[in-house]
C-alpha cells in the first residue's frame, strides 16, 4: 500500500516538475549545401564547416521556450524565430560579399491593431506567437502566427517575410533593421 502510494505520488510529481525543465533542445541545422550550420544550444550561431562561429544571432537564450529556423534554398539566408511564453521575435542572418550579417524584424512591423480590427475583436494584446512556413523563393518565406487578446480572443494571422535587399540601419544590439520586412499581413 505504502509503495503504491509512493509510486502514485512520484508519477504525479514528475510531470508537474517537467514544466521547469528547459524544453530547448540543442540542435544543428545544416544549410542545404552544407557550407554552414545553424547551431542552437546556449546561443544561436552560424558556424562554418570547420566549426568556427561566423555570426552569433542570440547570445542568451534564458527564458526561451522554442527556436524555429529554416535555411533558404540557396543557403545564403537563415530565418530564426525565437519564442518565449508570451511573445516571439524574428531574426535572420544573411551572407553577402562582406560576410555574414544579422537582421531583425522590427516590432513596429506587426500591425496588431489592424489585424485585430480585421478579425473583429478588441482588447489588450496578451501574447503572440509565430512559426515559419515554406520558402517561396530564396528571398521570401511565409510566416504564420497568432495574437491572443484579453478574454482569450484569438487572431490567427499570416504574412510573407521578405529580404528587401535594401540597406538597413544598425541598432544597439548589432542587428540591421529594415533588411527584412513583413508584407501582405492578413487574418487567416
Amino acid at each position, binding site marked *: 500500500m*505504502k509503495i503504491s502510494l*509512493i509510486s502514485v*505520488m*512520484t508519477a504525479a*510529481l*514528475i510531470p508537474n*516538475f*517537467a*514544466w*521547469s*525543465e*528547459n524544453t530547448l533542445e540543442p540542435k544543428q541545422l545544416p544549410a542545404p549545401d552544407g557550407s554552414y550550420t545553424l547551431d542552437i544550444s546556449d546561443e544561436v550561431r552560424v558556424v562554418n564547416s570547420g566549426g568556427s562561429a561566423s555570426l552569433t544571432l*542570440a547570445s*542568451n537564450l*534564458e*527564458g*526561451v521556450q522554442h527556436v524555429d529556423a529554416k535555411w533558404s534554398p540557396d543557403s545564403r539566408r537563415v530565418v530564426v524565430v*525565437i*519564442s*518565449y*511564453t*508570451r*511573445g*516571439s*521575435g524574428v*531574426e535572420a542572418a544573411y551572407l553577402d560579399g562582406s560576410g555574414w550579417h544579422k537582421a*531583425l*524584424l*522590427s*516590432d*513596429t*512591423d*506587426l500591425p*496588431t491593431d489592424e489585424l485585430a480590427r480585421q478579425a473583429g475583436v478588441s482588447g*489588450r*494584446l*496578451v*501574447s*503572440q506567437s509565430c512559426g515559419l512556413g515554406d520558402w517561396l523563393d530564396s528571398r521570401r518565406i511565409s510566416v504564420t502566427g497568432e*495574437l491572443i487578446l*484579453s*478574454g*482569450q480572443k484569438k487572431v490567427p494571422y499570416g504574412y510573407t517575410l521578405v529580404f528587401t535587399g535594401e540597406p538597413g540601419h544598425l*541598432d*544597439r*544590439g*548589432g*542587428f540591421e*533593421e529594415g533588411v527584412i520586412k513583413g508584407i501582405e499581413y492578413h487574418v487567416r
Partner: protein
Amino acid sequence: MRSVLTGSFVVLLIAGISGCDDSISSPSGGTSDTPTQNDLMQGQQIGNAVSGNQTFGNANGGSGFGSPQDTIQFGAASFTADSFAKIDTDGDPSEQGYDQTWNAQTSGQIDGQPVNSANYAYVVMSQGQMAASGAQIGDWALVTNNETGQSMWARVEDVGPPGGTGEISEACATGVGIQFQRNSNTVGNPSVTVQVYSGSKSISGGSN
C-alpha cells in the same frame, strides 16, 4: 544544469516521501527552489506598500531586487519607452482567476521559480526590443511614474508580445504609486517611462 537540479529535486522529493513512512514529516527546506527568508521579508515589504503604509522616494528599491549598487557603469539607457502603464501579474499565484491575462510563468526565474509579480519589481520587454537594445533578462531598468515623478529600480524579468511597452509588475506599480485592481486594470490611466540599461544584469542589488 537545470535538468540536474530538477532531477535532484525529484530524487529529494521521492526520498522525502519514502522517508515519511506512515507519519507526515515537516519539510526541512534548504533546496534551491525554496524561497529564502530574505525573499519573504522583501515580500512583506511589498505587502506593506500595497496596503498604502509605505511611500517610496525617487529611484528607490524596496522590492525583492532592491536597487543596483553601482549605477556609474550604466551609461545611457539602451531602451526607453514612455507609455500607459499596464500591470503584469504573471508569477503571482494569488492572481490566478482574477486577471484574465495571468500566466503562471515568467521568462525570468529566481531559484528555478517564476518571478512573483507581487514581490519583485520587474518590467516586460518584447524579444525584438531586447535584441535591438542588447538587453537581456535580468538587466536593470528605471521605472518612473510620469505624473508623480516617483521612480524605482526594477529588472527585466518577462518577455511579452511585440510592441508592448509600459508593462510592469505589481510590486513595481506599487513602488511608483500606481494603483490597480485585482483584475490588473490600473486606476485611471497612469503613464510610466521605462529606461533599460543593457549589460547591467551582473550588478547586484541591495537596499538603499
